């Protein structure tokens, strides 16, 4: 079967008409004392097998909440999903009963959490915690589960796994604990892995080890990887395609090379220009002016308009749709043509 033309062309063939995972017009809001927080306002992205989608965006733009909605781990209430679908191989997960979702969560769609280092339980050995996946979901005996745990620790390259399987989390360094979290997340061979800022707390040298490990595991098993990050360097290194979030929306999505060569949204363009470049030494850096939006009081029209150098009068009133630039690219900017041309506003 063939993908429809509007699908981003996958690195390797897709599965059926629907991609492996499709988030479609997802909305998430939180009822808080201060008011209704509209954290996710119509997010759509797709992921194919073997593909790496990077989700980029600043703090509070809704990256983690979207991931939590895919996993089905939002507390409802206070969270509510008024609109949208999360289709996994064509089935809308949001319509499934909780038992059915439990079958998918952690087994077919797994996640590495942003605060992974505190996610390990300090009172159980790492072997026991990895083995739990097999005891609970596969009904394995303690001994078999421990054997599996050692195998996995080997796979994520923890030296002397056999000797270390009964050590406790505090006996490992930050990078090693992150490997253990990765081991747990890939234990049951998920088809989709969501990694939420998996290296933010780590040094660049350790980050490089972890990113290499994730890429290798992905090659071995052809899983789809959603990598959530705000690091433009990591994205450039590993992503096949990118979704940029701002104020709870996707403002641009495109294959990785296109976005770095010719960004199609003023926010993306501003981000790329604010990276210090070697030839800019001694000069003032380009800086996006102003502040990220307040989700309780979103700007009218295009939520980027208070900071945008391309702004025109209609930006203040008209919410830009996610325009199609070409079959593999979209931009939520009325003036994407001008942005692509590089004519500055």
């Amino acid at each position, binding site marked *: 079967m063939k993908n429809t033309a509007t699908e981003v062309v996958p690195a390797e063939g897709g599965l059926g008409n629907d991609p492996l995972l499709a988030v479609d017009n997802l909305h998430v809001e939180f009822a808080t004392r201060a008011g209704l927080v509209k954290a996710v306002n119509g997010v759509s992205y797709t992921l194919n097998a073997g593909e790496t989608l990077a989700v980029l965006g600043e703090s509070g733009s809704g990256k983690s909440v979207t991931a939590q909605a895919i996993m089905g781990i939002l507390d409802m209430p206070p969270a509510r999903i008024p609109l949208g679908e999360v289709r996994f191989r064509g089935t809308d997960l949001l319509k499934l009963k909780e038992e059915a979702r439990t079958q998918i969560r952690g087994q077919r769609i797994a996640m590495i959490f942003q605060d992974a280092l505190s996610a390990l339980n300090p009172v159980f050995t790492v072997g026991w915690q990895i083995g739990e996946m097999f005891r609970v979901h596969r009904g394995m005996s303690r001994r078999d589960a421990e054997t599996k745990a050692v195998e996995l620790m080997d796979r994520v390259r923890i030296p002397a796994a056999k000797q270390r399987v009964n050590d406790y989390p505090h006996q490992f360094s930050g990078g090693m604990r992150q490997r253990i979290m990765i081991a747990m997340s890939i234990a049951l061979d998920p088809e989709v892995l969501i990694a939420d800022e998996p290296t933010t707390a780590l040094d660049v040298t350790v980050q490089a080890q972890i990113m290499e490990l994730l890429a290798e595991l992905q090659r071995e098993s052809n899983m789809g990887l959603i990598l959530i990050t705000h690091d433009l360097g990591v994205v450039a290194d590993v992503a096949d395609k990118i979704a940029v979030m701002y104020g709870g929306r996707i403002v641009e999505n495109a294959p990785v090379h296109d976005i770095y060569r010719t960004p199609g949204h003023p926010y993306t363009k501003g981000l790329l220009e604010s990276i210090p470049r070697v030839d800019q030494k001694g000069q003032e850096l380009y800086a996006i002016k102003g502040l*990220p939006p307040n989700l309780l009081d979103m700007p009218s029209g295009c939520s980027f308009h208070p900071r945008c150098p391309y702004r025109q009068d209609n930006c203040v009133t008209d919410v830009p749709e996610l325009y199609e630039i070409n079959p593999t690219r979209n931009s939520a900017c009325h003036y994407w043509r001008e942005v692509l041309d590089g004519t500055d506003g």
Partner: protein
Amino acid sequence: MAPTGDPILEVRDLVKHFPLSQGIVFKRQIGAIKAVDGVSFDLHRGETLGVVGESGCGKSTLAKVLMALERPTSGSVMINGKDMAKARGGDLKRMRRNVQMVMQDPYTSLNPRMTVGDIIGEPYEIHPDVAPKGERRRKVQDLLDVVGLNPDHINRYPHQFSGGQRQRIGIARGLALQPEIIICDEPVSALDVSIQAQVINLLDRLQTEFDLAYIFIAHDLSVVRHISDRVAVMYLGKMVELGKDLEIYDKPAHPYTQALLSAVPVPDPEGREQRERIILQGDPPSPANPPSGCRFRTRCWKAEEICAEEEPLLQIRPGTGHESACHFAETHDVVHAT
């Protein structure tokens, strides 16, 4: 900015060990964490020295000793030619005033119950001679203006500001006592990319305006490169390489610096498959029990017998124009994508 004249700060063989003790009633010292273990460098007026290195290598400890927040175990810190350890009374107070700090975390480093005016004016309580009581409010408003905040917001509380604005408040407080040296410990790491550039531009502008010297600690190597005149690379409490920004970034001589630079992801996907990368194996050893000889030898691909026996000193080596601490130092040309 080119460094001129006598150094404003001279650091010699600086050591800071934290005792490791055992026992509850009778504490016995069983060892020490060698957080900073023999560091020497100079800093000139108007100059920025970038300090980089992995987590735990001693960057913040170095900053705290220079700020006199921690006492050095040994070694000396001279400010404008005067030894800090020997200074007393008013002299010591003036020396301390001359070195200020901007912290990493704009969310926790400001007292939430104090107004912005009180936070920025707090240093005047300790050094009342800098600004007499009647002048303080105006001084604080001037400082708010200097860092690009609205002087009318003097009575607001930290939670009413964004992360980038809070970092500006921290910078304003750092400037209050008109220091000559400001130590920035990860000043932009907690900020969004779109805000980082604003704060870096501000630090740059203030440096020119007040002829400040910066020690700029950060893990983002592209930010360090942008702002620094010279860069020091630390590993396990030691400086392993020190040179002008171009020397460190384009011609690194120490294997650790080479690995560190190659691990930094380049924000450009062009040619990513061909990029040369050195992935270090293993973790850094414990600073309580560093390897003999060269501390990097347990992860170094060039290590030979001599590396375990003899400690390589930080010095200019044959074929390299700047200081490095490696027996087999050789410059390595780095080709940058941007």
